């Protein structure tokens, strides 16, 4: 063995990775500058919120969770949905997907980071975040679903960081990755992906006092919609990778993901329909929130345009995805992916979290509208996630195309 020691090569890997991450053509710089600017606006808004209190948000004692927790839920789904790429690549040994599965793993890392950031910015006392950590804090496990979520999300982040880090580093060294060091973790990450979204659903569905959430279908519905947003985002990302990087993305890979997406988009709509039927046909107090959401009640209808937009987007996207031919209609498929991504974002965010609080437990009809501060923080967190994703994909592309290798000199 005359390989240099890791203690030498790993810092070199990091150094060269930083080089790749900060080097590119003009569109790359423009894109990164844009994301950085939005992130900074978000950080500033968060600092302001921490000082002045959550009073700067539109939340109230009646609607005590809003845009942040809505986005948290969606981001967890996106992270779980990334596994839609990992399953065919590893379980079904799909060769075409195997070459690009790293994009899915990078997505998982970025989306989990986004989800965690949304939890932190929703805390009234971010300075006490350490109370929420196992061992050093006071961890109410196993009773509190939120502690389960801390474990699930933290574990998923570590798993995916290990998998991506290991694959990229060995490729950088010019070696074949050793299956022992990543395949077991990939298998674990598949199970773990389902668990993060199940636990997040249990967070809500376990609350007896909130009839709108207190339904057994919530976890399956979360998984179904995760299998919509994950693949939809990956299709868009792969189209972008194909356009802006040298990395090879075959049509076969796109076709496999599309196949998953076609089933998932229908499964998701089916579950929404089952939920809506049960609520409206049964009636009574269980329908109060759904009535407010879909049609408005007591003269309040703030969420009605949101939810019908979501339904419209999802239905049209489903029609396009089912009708389009991947060989000819790639643009249409891209459009449908963007539509259903937005559709689920509304349905699972504003359409699921907010109506859980309207009417309140004492049947007050207090509506919620996010403030500019909340939008700034939300945009900032997504932009930060965009930075992580962009850099992750850029680095992967440089390594997978062989541009970035230990034995090749930096340009």
């Amino acid at each position, binding site marked *: 063995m005359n390989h240099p020691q890791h203690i030498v090569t790993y810092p070199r890997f990091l150094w060269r990775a930083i080089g790749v991450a900060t080097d590119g053509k003009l569109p790359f710089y423009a894109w990164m500058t844009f994301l*950085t600017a939005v992130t900074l606006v978000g950080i500033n808004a968060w600092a302001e919120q921490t000082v002045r209190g*959550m009073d700067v948000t539109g939340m109230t004692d009646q609607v005590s969770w809003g845009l942040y927790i809505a986005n948290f839920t969606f981001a967890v789904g996106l992270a779980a949905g990334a596994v839609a790429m990992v399953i065919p690549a590893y379980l079904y040994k799909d060769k075409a997907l195997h070459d690009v599965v790293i994009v899915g793993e990078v997505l998982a890392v970025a989306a989990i980071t986004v989800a965690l950031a949304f939890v932190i910015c929703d805390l009234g006392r971010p300075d006490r975040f350490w109370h*929420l950590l196992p061992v050093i804090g006071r961890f109410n496990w196993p009773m509190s679903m939120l502690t389960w979520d801390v474990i699930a999300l933290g574990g998923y982040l570590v798993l995916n960081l290990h998998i991506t880090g290991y694959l990229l580093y060995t490729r950088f060294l010019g070696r074949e990755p050793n299956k022992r060091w990543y395949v077991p973790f990939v298998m674990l990450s598949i199970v773990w992906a389902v668990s993060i979204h199940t636990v997040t659903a249990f967070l809500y569905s376990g609350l007896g*006092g909130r009839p709108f959430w207190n339904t057994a279908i919530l976890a399956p519905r979360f998984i179904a919609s995760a299998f919509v947003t994950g693949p939809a985002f990956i299709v868009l990302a792969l189209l972008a990778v194909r356009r802006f990087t040298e990395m090879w993305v075959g049509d076969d890979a796109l076709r496999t993901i599309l196949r998953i997406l076609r089933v998932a988009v229908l499964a998701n709509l089916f579950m929404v329909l089952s939920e809506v039927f049960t609520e409206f046909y049964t009636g009574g107090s269980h329908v109060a929130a759904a009535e407010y959401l879909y049609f408005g009640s007591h003269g309040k209808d703030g969420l009605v345009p949101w939810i019908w937009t979501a339904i419209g987007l999802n239905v049209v996207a489903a029609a396009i995805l089912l009708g389009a031919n991947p060989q000819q209609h790639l643009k249409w498929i891209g459009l449908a992916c963007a539509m259903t991504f937005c559709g689920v974002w509304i349905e699972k965010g504003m359409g699921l979290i907010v109506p859980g609080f309207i009417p*309140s437990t004492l049947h007050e009809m207090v509506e919620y509208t996010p403030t500019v501060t909340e939008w700034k923080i939300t945009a900032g967190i997504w932009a930060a996630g965009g930075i992580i994703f962009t850099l992750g994909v850029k680095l992967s592309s440089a390594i997978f195309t062989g541009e970035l290798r230990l034995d090749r000199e930096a340009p």
Partner: protein
Amino acid sequence: MDASRRTALKALGASLGVAGLARALQPLVDWTPATSMDELLQKHYKALTKEELAVILRRLEDEARDTYGVDVTIEDVRPTPGVEFGYALNLSICIGCRKCAEACHNENNHDRSTNNSYIRVLEMEKGSLDMGKGSVDYDGPVPAPGKFYMPVQCQQCRNPPCVSVCPVEATWQESDGVTVVDYNWCIGCRYCEAACPYHARRFNWKKPELGASEINPNQSYLSNRVRPQGVMEKCTFCLHRTRKGQLPACLEACPTGARVFGNLLDPSSEIRWVLENKRVFVLKEDLGTQPRFYYFFDE
């Protein structure tokens, strides 16, 4: 572009980024002194020794003087063994005057600007217990014809969902049945507020605004001391009073005598008499929360 120019541009970009970050965090930098290091590292209430807690109580009194300009006493009043508090409310004679809510507001040092209180009074339609037909923002003379009134506050559940969901054990049930919050441990995630079926919990969306003369100086750590920004709070059955043998402020303020408070474990208490002789009910019994707060009608 040659390499040195590229490096120079990168350095420029990095410095701009760092400068931007510093600028973005400016509000935090200006504010940090408000949170003391002692507070940041303070342990959970149950992990504190008597001595440590005594130091904290003195620190909190000092902070109250510095912030609100008033001398207060903050005690740590513990539950009495053999006591389990229960509350009953006679819906036949409650007139919906909201004196209880007002007394709670004053007793518990609530934020003046939002007129907060742990009690919400619902104006209900006679002939129905459906809260959907009730209203909390009723106005005009009370009692209005065809209506009855139902004050709702923390039900001090035997099986409290708020305690189960708290990720950091910042809220728990004490031996006398009162569910309390350690305001210095709560992280403000508001999961308990989502879990409570009775809208009993409140969040401090901002620092409470109180004038020096408006502050009730008789305070305790787990109840009515002025809460910090960004944490949860709730009704404690006025434990700083009731654990010393006094009655809750809401009961003392009630002009009709609709409220009955006492020790559920004492067979000769008035509350036990009500439970044994009236047909009482609890709110949302189907949820299995098992409240210690009972409602009854006279006739």
